[in-house]
């Protein structure tokens, strides 16, 4: 029982990332009809917003320490971050320590801008082209973006730790009557889950309870009719692309303490997120969220030793097996709508 609870908890934070990326993907598909293979790259760019802010906060002046030497035996050049010089050592270190949460403030405008430029500069030219063309051009764009990031930041993962306040784990098992150390869960993963849930709730509320959201939903259902009413639906859809990019970016920012980011992290999530979208139902936001959490939890279960000893290698194919089973029984996915990609 404790092992099952443990894997459910593990699956929730992994599922949170899948759900956030898949939600953006399906939002873009539902509004613009574009299959965006560059969406994983947006997740990666978000993560590198956190890396960039961390590097900016660590910009330094050099002070020579004559008492110490460097690896060549020369007087040691000590790097003193400007924030420590300006705000004092304690405050400066605290600001640096909180660079990941602070990066959210940087990531929102950056990702909105990246999304806007991507849509206006490239993707809008492919609206009327076949999906194969869209996949090719967005996949190419993803490769270009990740190579640019690699050129600037290198190929190795870059440690981007959570604030000290959230390091370590809490004993969830003790809360529900299990023995000590039976079910432990890192604080930051819990924060990631809560953060993701909040973002998902905000996107749903935005679409459900605002006039803008209502127009977008109407446009998703019948673009032509909304256009005939004199509403510039294209402009709203462009903004939705920017919002989807921002959601992916925020997912990336907050993911950096879980796994140190590298240039390839977007691709690692992309394929799985597409499976999540298909399982959830193309164009269905609740479907994407449900499938994201479902597949995240299932993936965790498949990694259990007991399961792997019965079915070796199951952890690598479980998501695809479930996708096949669901698509065979429900061809439109868990919550897919009739007519989407069926013309």
């Amino acid at each position: 029982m404790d092992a099952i609870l443990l894997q459910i908890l593990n699956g929730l934070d992994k599922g949170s990332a899948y759900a956030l990326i898949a939600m953006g993907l399906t939002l873009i598909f539902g509004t613009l009809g574009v299959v965006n293979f560059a969406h994983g790259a947006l997740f990666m760019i978000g993560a590198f917003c956190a890396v960039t802010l961390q590097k900016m906060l660590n910009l330094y002046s050099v002070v020579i320490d004559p008492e110490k030497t460097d690896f060549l035996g020369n007087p040691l050049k000590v790097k003193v971050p400007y924030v420590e010089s300006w705000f004092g050592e304690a405050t400066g270190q605290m600001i640096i320590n909180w660079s990941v949460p602070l990066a959210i403030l940087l990531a929102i405008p950056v990702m909105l801008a990246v999304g806007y430029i991507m849509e206006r500069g490239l993707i809008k030219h492919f609206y009327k082209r076949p999906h194969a063309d869209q996949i090719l051009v967005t996949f190419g764009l993803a490769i270009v973006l990740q190579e640019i990031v690699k050129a600037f930041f290198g190929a190795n993962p870059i440690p981007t730790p959570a604030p000290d306040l959230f390091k370590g784990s809490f004993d969830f098992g003790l809360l529900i009557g299990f023995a000590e150390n039976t079910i432990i869960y890192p604080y930051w993963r819990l924060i990631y889950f809560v953060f993701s849930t909040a973002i998902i709730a905000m996107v749903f509320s935005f679409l459900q309870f605002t006039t803008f959201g209502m127009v977008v939903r109407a446009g998703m259902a019948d673009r032509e009719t909304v256009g005939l009413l004199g509403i510039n639906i294209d402009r709203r859809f462009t903004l939705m692309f920017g919002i989807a990019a921002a959601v992916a970016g925020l997912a990336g920012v907050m993911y950096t303490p879980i796994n140190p980011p590298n240039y390839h992290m977007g691709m690692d999530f992309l394929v799985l997120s597409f499976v999540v979208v298909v399982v959830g139902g193309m164009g269905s936001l609740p479907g994407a969220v449900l499938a994201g959490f479902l597949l995240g939890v299932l993936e965790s279960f498949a990694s259990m030793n007991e399961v792997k000893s019965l079915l070796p290698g199951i952890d690598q194919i479980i998501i695809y097996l479930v996708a096949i089973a669901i698509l065979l029984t429900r061809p439109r996915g868990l919550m897919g709508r009739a007519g989407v990609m069926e013309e």
Partner: protein
Amino acid sequence: MSKIIKTRREVLKTAAVVGAGLSMPTFFASSAFAGYRNEPMGGSVTLGFNVPQTGPYADEGADELRAYMLAVEHLNGGGDGGMMNTFSSKALKGNGILGKKVEYVTGDTQTKSDAARASAKSMIEKDGAVMITGGSSSGVAVAVQGLCQEAGVIFMAGLTHSNDTTGKDRKANGFRHFFNGYMSGAALAPVLEKMYGSDRRAYHLTADYNWGWTQQESIAAATEAKGWETVNNVTTPLTTTDFSSYVAPVLNSGADVLVLNHYGGNMINSLTSAVQFGLRDKVVNGKNFEIVVPLYSRLMARGAGENVKGIFGSTNWHWSLSDAGSKAFVKSFGEKYGFPPSQAAHTVYCQALLYADACERAGTFNPCGVVEALEGFKFDGLGNGPTEYRAEDHQCFKDVLVVKGKENPSSEFDVLEIVEVTPRAQVEYAPDHPMFSGGALGTCNPGA
């Protein structure tokens, strides 16, 4: 006047005899090694540096390439000579190799066996490389070593730690300077026993491929010999990025040590997960829970940030060593590039010098001559103390470093500290050791 030569046939016969006579001295001088692939004919010789320039180990590949370029500079008489000044063999004169200027071509292994073989093949067939060297993966090393054996050129392996490279997959044309999984186990186990005691229960997470399996086998055998129990060994797919589902059950398994048989990105991510789950803050079986990373790389340790502090592992070489060879290399490399070299840079620099030295001593570039010169070659001054290229398996035997993540680093390069220099005798094994059995060197292939 008598006719000396009467017919056209006699003219040809005489020419053949005279020609053979004139060529006799040269022929005898290199008779054992005549005719081989990519024999350098002009004033230069081309070496092929096959390193990961893209993909997950691109940073290590870049450091290898820097070291190769430094080696080429030194071999051609440029720079301060680096470890050529401390190398016990004095065959290298700074005038290239055998008087031919050293030139090089590069290939990108992408850390993929097929891509690495393709780039090595291209360098051999199109660029005329007489030796291939480099790489940052055992899968790549085994694949390229096999290709070089078939093609008839020498392969000087880069960073490869699997027992198989000089075990079941050993080849006559291939040589490894880097240490291996068995040596890591033999060096680490006594230190771990000293630090953590002999009553320990270890849980292994192992990368699910050739290198991971051999390292896990080696570490488990070495620690079990010291009294440890191996509670579980879970293989993890190489493509895993989030290790939480593998790390979470560890505390509940009764283990009090987690051994991470991971390298590169896998190591960074699994270690980060283990630290996030607070394993190092826990007390299990009345002891502090510990984590061990048997193979350390400074470049990778930097990626794991503060998580490596206090964690034990092993490494082939470290820039903080104080012997004359290491100091000379660190000075050359540091002054040229502005930061200290990694162990990957060190091992490939040594391999380039060792190959060049073997050619000089053999008096030929012929692979069979080079093999003969390297087999059983004993040397010193290249940063690892007295070293030998064992003839039976083409593995270098030398001291191994046990290191630990530094608690108070003074710079971004000062990530590891040396805990112990394990003497060669302690990490040596018989050529027919079961962990290395199942392969044979075969005979050298000159390729022509």
